[in-house]
């Protein structure tokens, strides 16, 4: 059953349509990604879902509640992590969590939450003295302190070092495993690919594709490429006779075979039958990056 339903959402700033008819549904327990370049309308979309911004058209339901009409009720069950939102420099980690816990009718055990987010030794540390990664984790903790059923996380790992990013990803998977539905706004392909069950690719205020990560890449191309260095000479026809193979190219000592499904298996077995060893064997697949460029005509990074 859908826990979030967005239909024909429209938001206009002046003459600019930041969100131009976006519709999607998110199932309970899903990690749903909203992926797109800067200025695509991702943040505006989730702000309308959160009730932080009023929409100009369409309908939004989160757990059956309208974020604009039932905002107070919804915020009891919605956890929101905003991009670029700080706390006063002198507030301590423990104080911030206790304060935010007092805002909810039911809240999480703050001690356990602090431990879970790896801030155990930092209870008394002021916000201003935390590293960027620690501030980010506290921010996630504040979004989770009200025991939300739905969490919206916007640009979760921007500005984090690679280790902190991987730790944050692990954390998000734990949160989902505890039954929380998650909307993840990101412009990082690897993040979306690693975490999301489904991804809406947004560009210029519209959803240009909505699918699983694998589905998105498959949609762009069914093609696979196998690249290897053969141990002995052979004629191209050996491979071209296979139904799976479309093209054979030679790059110096390397052979690049292009084709459809089960390409690798077909190529390797025919080589084996002819006592040819395929050294440096590599399968090159279309990446989500390639898919994104194909779908939007833009690159994500910049």
């Amino acid at each position, binding site marked *: 059953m859908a826990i979030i339903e967005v239909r024909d959402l429209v938001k206009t700033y002046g003459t600019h349509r930041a969100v131009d008819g976006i519709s999607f549904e998110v199932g309970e327990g899903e990690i749903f990604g909203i992926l797109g370049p800067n200025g695509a309308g991702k943040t505006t979309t989730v702000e309308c879902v*959160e009730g*932080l911004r009023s929409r100009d058209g369409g309908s939004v339901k989160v757990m059956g509640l309208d974020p604009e009409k039932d905002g*107070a009720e919804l*915020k*009891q069950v*919605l956890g*929101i992590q*905003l991009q*670029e*939102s*700080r*706390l*006063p420099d*002198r*507030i301590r980690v423990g*104080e911030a969590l*206790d*304060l*935010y816990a*007092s*805002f*909810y*009718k039911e809240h999480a055990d703050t001690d356990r939450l602090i431990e879970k987010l790896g801030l155990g030794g930092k209870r008394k540390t002021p916000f201003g003295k935390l590293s960027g990664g620690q501030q980010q984790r506290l921010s996630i903790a*504040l*979004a989770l302190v*009200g025991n939300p059923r739905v969490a919206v996380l916007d640009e979760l790992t921007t500005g984090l070092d690679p280790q902190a990013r991987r730790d944050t990803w692990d954390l998000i998977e734990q949160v989902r495993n505890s039954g929380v539905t998650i909307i993840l706004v990101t412009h990082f392909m690897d993040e979306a690919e690693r975490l999301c069950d489904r991804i809406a690719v947004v560009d210029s205020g519209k959803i240009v594709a909505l699918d699983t990560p694998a589905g998105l890449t498959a949609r762009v191309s069914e093609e696979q490429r196998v690249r290897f260095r053969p141990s002995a000479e052979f004629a191209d026809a050996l491979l071209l006779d296979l139904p799976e193979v479309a093209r054979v190219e030679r790059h110096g000592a390397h052979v690049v075979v292009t084709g459809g499904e089960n390409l690798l298996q077909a190529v390797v077995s025919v080589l084996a039958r002819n006592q040819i060893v395929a050294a440096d064997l590599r399968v090159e697949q279309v990446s989500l990056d390639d898919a994104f460029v194909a779908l939007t005509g833009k690159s994500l990074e910049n």
Partner: protein
Amino acid sequence: MSALGKLIQIEARLFVRDPMTFVVGLLLPTVVLLGLGAVPMLREPAEDMGGQRFIDYFAPSVIVMAVGVIGLTNLPAVLAAYREQGVLRRMRTTPVHPMKLLVAQLVVNLGASLLSAALVVAAGNLVYGVPLPKHAWGFAIAFVLGITAVFALGMLVAALAPTARAASGLSTVLFMLAMFFGGVYLPRFMLPDAIARAGDFVPPGVQSLLDAWTGTAPAVVPLAVMAATAVAAGAVAARIFKWE
């Protein structure tokens, strides 16, 4: 504890933790009064001040300073920073409206001004025998209306200023004006008469405080001006205040 109670508790801690607000806001006015009183000449009755000692005459101006430092500089600075850093925005994501954070800030800063003024009165009385305000009711009314007008202006600065920097610039100008007309920079008997009279109407209204202190009921018109300033500035601030 309720969310508001918790907010007040935390904001009070943050106030005390910041050495600038704690020392300048809470202690400086008392230190200034004690410092001036250490000069023997300022403890002699003088004709210029209607036979009062300078230290008695100047005490209301020190109260102006206590209220001004907190209401016109600290309050808008903190609120503008909270807006700029997204503290108010983050609160909008919770079931508790950021209005409660504003209320907590007002409570803490009002409490601090009250404490600072009480310190001035008590220290002046204990150390130099500055009499306690004689017209107690008049003093209470003049103080409450004066502080409300100053805080409403502080809220107006917080509402108008798009950034923390702009808030600090704007509030510095207002603070210096309030201090000048309040006789903090130059004792008021040294100011041209027209300026001193205009000062009666500049929040927090130093003449009303002085009158009540020496035992006269404060004049109605300056008190009405304080009330009007508080209502007008407060209403505009409430209308235009932006959470982000």
